[in-house]
């Protein structure tokens, strides 16, 4: 039998079923004493815990989410601001590409975590250090994604634009940039997830706020409930950002939606 795509609502029904079964099995396995709630608290307990962390006197969860998200977004925007123009130039100029490639090849394989010691020595543990970690984790990837996206723009379109009288700058602005945008945006979506990894790691090592910090301190107190609330908060926040990003994509690429819609 051929597998066909489901409508949105049908997919949502199946998805909810899967989720309910998963949470149900989790809850039951603890109620039946198959798993020690100290190691893995049941969903019901996590929910009450989350409610306490958002409404009680020590309501830190929302501010932690806000702090982590703003670190992620600030660092991410800084690296986009620096990486995209550089990547565009690298994409169109083989000289610039050849010059910068060795440097990027050295920086790119470094995990963001490996920048933590240096960044702490340079910047301490305040906000700049978090932005720096995100920047180091994202910049090289953005550069490479942008360069690749730029180089995939159909050369005949560049030719057509120059034939119509466009200058080098106009080709870059009106042809290369919009032509590279679809690939660029899907690359940036991947990098945004990397940015989260960077912030959470940085917060675990040296911070006094944010989701990473909250999870790490909970571990010190063997507070598995708080660890799980923190982890789920990361998932939910990333999901919401991803939806926002998709909205941005639809806004910036109306021509792609129209084409796939017909």
């Amino acid at each position, binding site marked *: 039998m051929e597998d066909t795509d489901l409508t949105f609502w049908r997919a949502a029904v199946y998805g909810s079923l899967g989720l309910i079964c998963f949470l149900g099995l989790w809850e039951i396995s603890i109620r039946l004493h198959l798993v020690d709630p100290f190691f893995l608290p049941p969903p019901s307990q996590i929910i009450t815990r989350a409610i306490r962390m958002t409404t009680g006197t020590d309501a830190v969860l929302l501010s932690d989410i806000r702090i982590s998200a703003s670190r992620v977004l600030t660092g991410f925007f800084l690296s986009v601001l620096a990486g995209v123009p550089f990547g565009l130039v690298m994409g169109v100029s083989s000289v610039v590409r050849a010059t910068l490639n060795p440097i990027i090849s050295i920086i790119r394989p470094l995990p963001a975590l490996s920048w933590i010691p240096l960044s702490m020595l340079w910047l301490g543990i305040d906000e700049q250090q978090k932005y720096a970690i995100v920047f180091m984790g994202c910049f090289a990837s953005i550069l490479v994604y942008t360069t690749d996206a730029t180089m995939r723009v159909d050369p005949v379109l560049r*030719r*057509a*634009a120059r034939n119509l009288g466009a200058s080098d700058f106009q080709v870059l602005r009106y042809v290369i940039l919009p032509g590279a945008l679809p690939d660029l945006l899907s690359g940036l979506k991947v990098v945004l997830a990397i940015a989260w990894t960077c912030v959470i790691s940085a917060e675990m090592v040296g911070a006094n706020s944010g989701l990473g910090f909250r999870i790490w301190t909970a571990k010190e107190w063997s507070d598995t409930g708080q660890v799980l609330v923190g982890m789920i908060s990361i998932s939910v926040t990333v999901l919401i950002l991803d939806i926002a990003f998709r909205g941005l994509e639809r806004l910036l690429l109306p021509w792609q939606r129209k084409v796939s819609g017909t």
Partner: protein
Amino acid sequence: MALIQLDNVSKVFSSRKVDVEAVRGFSLSIRKGEVVTLVGASGCGKTTVLNMVAGFIAPTSGKVFLEGEPVSRVEPRCGMIFQSYALFPWLTVRENVEFGPKVNGISRKTRKDLARNYIEMVGLTGFADSYPGELSGGMRQRVALCRALANKPDILLCDEPFAALDAMTRQVMQQELLNIVSRSGQTVFFITHSIDEALILSDRVVVMSARPGQVKAVYDIDLSRPRKIDVQLTDEYLKIKRKIWDLVEEEVKASMNM
């Protein structure tokens, strides 16, 4: 003075392993208002000739002149129509047509009127705000035609623009191009491997040899204008078609080592 003058032009493409001589000693001049078609077997260097006129590639030796001036860079006065349409997929039909005037600093209002006129001329008014991805091949090529014309080129270069279209659409497009040419006196340099297409469009047909491409023969086409499709049934048409076909056949066989 000729509008376009190719003077003993040759082109060799060099790669690390081999040198390919695409065009050798090619000379041709095109007068203002003329429609000249270059026919030849595939791989004979037709497109290379066109790309040299447009300034996309430089000749290895010889020179291309536009109104007496050597062509040394991409030349906006030579409007190109590509076989693959080369429309900007992120721009609407209207924005595609306005692209040339826009980058050349024409005011918003003027280019809007310009685009409207051209889009109306090819019957796409209802599609002005559509994206190229929503159009059929024939419609896309009409947009490409508008886009080139809106830039008011001195000469229209056509690189097998109708080759990817089905036979019926192709005929319609040929008629449309003929109408535009007869109305505006647009100079056209057209490349095709279809002898019928060459005969229906041209004042002159240049037959190109197999690679390295040289001018093999030039025919003046005196068939009366306006030409309709039924011109293909006249004796005069069949006679000249036979002559050109014999020449082209020789070259096709030569290029296939038969």
